[in-house]
């Protein structure tokens, strides 16, 4: 059972490593922004599996924090970049 968890976590970490590719290649800034979403969701999945593997339920709190940050980053970029173009929010 534990080895399955370890394989899953390694797999998700490799997913993150693959997703990094889009941060370099992405032609626009939105591509890099969507990798933020990838990291957030994959990070949360890793935390969930770790919570089951280490049997430490407090990791679920960390998972919620990741989620909040990812969306905060997106909203901040959206609002902050828009203002510069002179449009009303």
């Amino acid at each position: 059972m534990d080895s399955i968890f370890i394989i899953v976590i390694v797999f998700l970490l490799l997913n993150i490593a693959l997703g990094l590719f889009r941060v370099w290649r992405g032609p626009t800034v939105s591509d890099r922004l969507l990798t933020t979403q990838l990291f957030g969701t994959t990070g949360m999945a890793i935390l969930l599996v770790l919570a089951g593997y280490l049997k430490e339920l407090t990791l679920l709190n960390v998972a919620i924090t990741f989620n909040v940050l990812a969306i905060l980053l997106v909203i901040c970029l959206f609002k902050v970049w828009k203002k510069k173009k002179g449009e009303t929010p």
Partner: protein
Amino acid sequence: MMIKEIITVILLVVGCFFFLAGTLGVLRFPDLFSRLHALTKADNLGLGFIAAAMALHIASPWAALKIFSIWFFTLLASSTSCYLIARFQKEKDQPSSRKEEE
């Protein structure tokens, strides 16, 4: 409880498959919007399966409720951010053609 373990493993594997699908979509799709679409849908579904597997593995009802609410909030948050990114990109491409729907 062999049946519980088997179901957990199956759910984990399905979740990983969806995560892989999402990552491949991000890498290989030609356009930002299709990448966004693939990423949001596939990753959240994968997260749902992994959350279900973990809720089954940690057999306490409060933990399961917490995991479910985490997943639900993630669903709301990532669908919102997906939409915001798409709209942001669309406005960058054509900055003046935006209809205000009030």
